[in-house]
């Protein structure tokens, strides 16, 4: 669906509305959510024949019978004659729209969002008239805001700075000063939005990006509702974009979702998990489902176990207030690692669209089982003082603003199983931590040893298990590890690695995750955004672990710069395995 976009807005409203109605009905009747996608796909299918016929004609001799000329304006099935699925040079440009950022003075906004918006404009992917509205508690005029964005763009944008692009963008910049309590400010925001519709032709389409601490979510969302900003005028959309954390356990996540969904339609809420915007993560699906050579061995008959690691070399920095009481498992495992697990383990989706992906991911989440004995198969730790890459660093409990008796985990490792035919008996080990050896995120699929080897044991002494490692960051790419004969007369087999580096085979200039995600929000393409069901299911998985930890013992201490506490090594040793050194 995403490839053929005759008009980003035409079919969508209809489809989403219908899907919503069916979903409402199903929720009332208590039917499973897994059936919803079929209805939506069906609704979207209504558009397909039109695109198809256009397709067919394009292939012909290029003669355009007059009948092909577009239907009169305002008809909902109007399709743009200048667009054609075959014309793949034309990029997916977002329709007329604007982006409102709350908390626009924050770090994320300056370092990621504003540069991403500029980069999109520079690549010609934003519609003419695109508008950017900032909302924050600063006494700024529009020009001051533009100046701040200018700075941010110059410092952090990926693409070169070009005056004309800047000029195009800056004409649509507005700033609204005010508190989230301030009715006046929201009234001003509403006026600004109306004014932009009139002066820039944004057609009432707005995405509200809540780049604010979660405690402000309720306030902002309520204010948007109160001032009618969340109600899309006929034929346009209003979307909400929120960042993690999506709650801190199942109950709070449900509460948050209820709150947001009270104001925005569930499918108009985009939850950012910036990992999913990364090329390699999207490539997991391409790797698995566009190729023939991996899928046959991607199951319990060949895979011994899977390790998913996200390691950071930094400490908590200035985030004590946010981090303490949350911890590594809630901060990373609940969202990033479980999403990576879902993409690694899921079955082939019926189509590459949001609903099909959701269906498959939910199936995986629902099949995830925690081990019975959480004490033996989960580990948490806290970094202690130590040497990290040649620098002496302090321990977590000595960090400023941290209670010396804190039991917050800065390292977490858990083992889960997936109870389905493909994965039964294959453990998935998830680990994450701060102040580990180096910054790396990877998925390692480790294969079983060959059932029989014609070589004697001395020849294969140094041979490990075959592995496919998908590196998510840094240095995105993939490594395949296998045994190979060492040159020489004797038969000796040793591990070698074969490497595919994204930066090498495609482009230094692959887009930033945020570019992709912001564009997808504006296009309404929800493939790369976790839905609320996924968020809730992943809390359901993690909650028992957190409960167990809250009542049993304390986090183990591990020296900064190491690969985690000894307990974590013991946890794998019990299963006769060991962690990879990433």
């Amino acid at each position, binding site marked *: 669906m995403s490839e053929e976009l005759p008009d980003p807005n035409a079919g969508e409203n209809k489809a989403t509305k219908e899907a919503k109605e069916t979903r409402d009905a199903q929720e009332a009747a208590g039917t499973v959510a897994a059936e919803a996608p079929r209805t939506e796909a069906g609704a979207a299918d209504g558009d397909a024949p039109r695109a198809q016929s256009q397709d067919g004609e394009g292939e012909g001799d290029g003669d355009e019978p007059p009948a092909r*000329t577009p239907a009169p304006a305002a008809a909902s099935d109007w399709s743009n004659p200048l667009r054609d699925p075959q014309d793949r040079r*034309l990029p997916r440009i977002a329709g*007329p729209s604007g982006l409102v950022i709350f908390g626009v003075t924050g770090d994320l906004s300056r370092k990621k969002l504003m540069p991403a918006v500029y980069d999109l404009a520079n690549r010609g992917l934003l*519609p003419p008239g695109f508008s950017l509205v900032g909302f924050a508690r600063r006494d700024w005029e529009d020009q001051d805001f533009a100046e701040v964005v200018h700075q941010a763009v110059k410092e952090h944008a990926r693409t070169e700075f070009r005056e*004309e692009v800047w000029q195009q963008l800056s004409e649509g910049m507005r700033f609204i000063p005010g508190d989230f309590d301030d009715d006046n400010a929201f009234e001003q925001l509403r006026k600004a939005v109306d004014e932009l519709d009139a002066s820039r032709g944004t057609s009432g389409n707005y995405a509200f990006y809540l780049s604010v601490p979660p405690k402000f979510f309720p306030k902002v969302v309520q204010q948007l509702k109160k001032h009618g900003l969340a109600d899309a005028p006929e034929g346009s959309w209003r979307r909400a974009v929120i960042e993690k954390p999506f709650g801190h356990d199942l109950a709070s996540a449900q509460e948050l979702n209820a709150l947001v969904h009270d104001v925005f339609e569930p499918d108009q809420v985009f939850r950012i998990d910036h990992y999913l915007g990364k090329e390699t993560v999207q490539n997991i699906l391409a790797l698995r489902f566009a190729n023939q050579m991996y899928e046959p061995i991607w199951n319990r008959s060949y895979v011994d176990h899977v390790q998913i690691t996200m390691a950071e070399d930094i400490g908590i920095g200035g985030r004590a207030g946010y981090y303490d009481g949350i911890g590594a498992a809630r901060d990373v495992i609940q969202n990033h690692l479980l999403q990576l697990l879902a993409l690694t383990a899921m079955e082939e989706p019926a189509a590459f669209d949001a609903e099909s992906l959701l269906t498959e991911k939910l199936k995986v989440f629902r099949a995830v089982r925690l081990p019975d004995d959480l004490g033996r198969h989960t580990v948490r730790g806290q970094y202690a003082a130590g040497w990290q890459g040649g620098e002496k660093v302090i321990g977590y409990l000595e960090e400023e603003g941290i209670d010396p008796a804190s039991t917050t985990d800065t390292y977490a490792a858990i083992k889960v199983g997936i109870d389905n035919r493909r994965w039964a008996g294959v453990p998935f080990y998830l680990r994450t931590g701060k102040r580990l050896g180096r910054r790396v995120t990877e998925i390692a699929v480790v294969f079983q040893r060959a059932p029989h080897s014609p070589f004697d044991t001395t020849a294969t002494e140094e041979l490990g298990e075959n592995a496919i490692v998908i590196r998510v960051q840094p240095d995105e790419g993939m490594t395949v590890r296998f045994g190979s004969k060492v040159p020489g007369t004797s038969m000796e087999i040793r591990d070698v690695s074969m490497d595919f580096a994204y930066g090498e085979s495609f*482009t230094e*200039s692959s887009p930033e995750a945020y570019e992709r995600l912001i564009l997808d929000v504006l296009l309404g393409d929800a493939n790369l955004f976790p839905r609320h069901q996924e968020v809730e299911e992943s809390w359901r998985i993690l909650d028992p672990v957190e409960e167990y930890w809250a009542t049993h013992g304390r986090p183990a201490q591990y020296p900064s710069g190491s690969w985690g506490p000894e307990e974590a090594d013991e946890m794998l040793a019990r299963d006769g395995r060991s962690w990879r050194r990433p």
Partner: protein
Amino acid sequence: MRIDLTDTTASKVNKALVQGRRAIGTPAVGMVLTMVIVTDEENAYDSIKAAEEASHEHPSRTLVVIKRHARNPRDRHNSHLDAEVRVGSEAGTGETVVLRMYGEVAEHADSVVLPLLLPDAPVVVWWPVDAPDNPAKDPLGALAQRRITDLYAVENPMETLRKRQRTYAPGDTDLAWTRLTLWRSMLAAALDQARAEVTSATVEAEADNPAAELLARWLEARLGVTVDRVVSDGPVVTAVRLGTAGGEIVIDRPEGPLATLSLPGQPSRSLALKVRSTAELIAEELRRLDADEMYAIALRGEATEETPVHV
């Protein structure tokens, strides 16, 4: 690293490539295509530079075929091949081989190029100048999935355009068409907003601009209207007007990279619409390596070529 080979053969060049790669310590490479640039000495430098820049997005083995013109009979009889192998930092993210052909071997450039193509990877041939009349039938062109010509680099663009139209084969493409992508995507975006039937259209451009002609033909093909060609002072394409019942949709770029978009009943706004560098054009070309059907449609158009109206 750079290895010079005089009076050499393709297999020696292959050896030098492996040797060069080993010497810089990266024996394995993730190159995605072979790019063959057929050019003369004069245009070689700029073309190589553009290809190297594009190789940041598409790491490739670049083979530069330079046919040297012999100026006396002795040279004509002395047929030989000189090669210059560049790997590592000298060659963008891929590797570059400059092949200088003297005498008779220049007529058989394909015999040199064939053994140097990356196994199994797509081949793209680019003629920055002096493209053959029928690219697909050219011995080098026949090796390639994609053949890039440039209507801007010919003496008589309109006549060459007719030739290209006659000899079109899937895989042909032209930089004059690539230059239009920004225009075309902005026009499509403008029409997304206007959502109206287009009843008339005008393309304003400098005289004899092949890109403007392609743009007009594309509009004719897609919109089913006759497009007026108006000659302006340039540079290149300066404006496109689409008439609808509600008024005109205009993208106007009188000069410089900043254009103005006007839609009926809406305030006009500015649009960044720059003239892109050759490297950017090549990078865009390499993003898709299958046949560009839309180019074929634009090339054929429904065009009854009219004499331009002078204003």
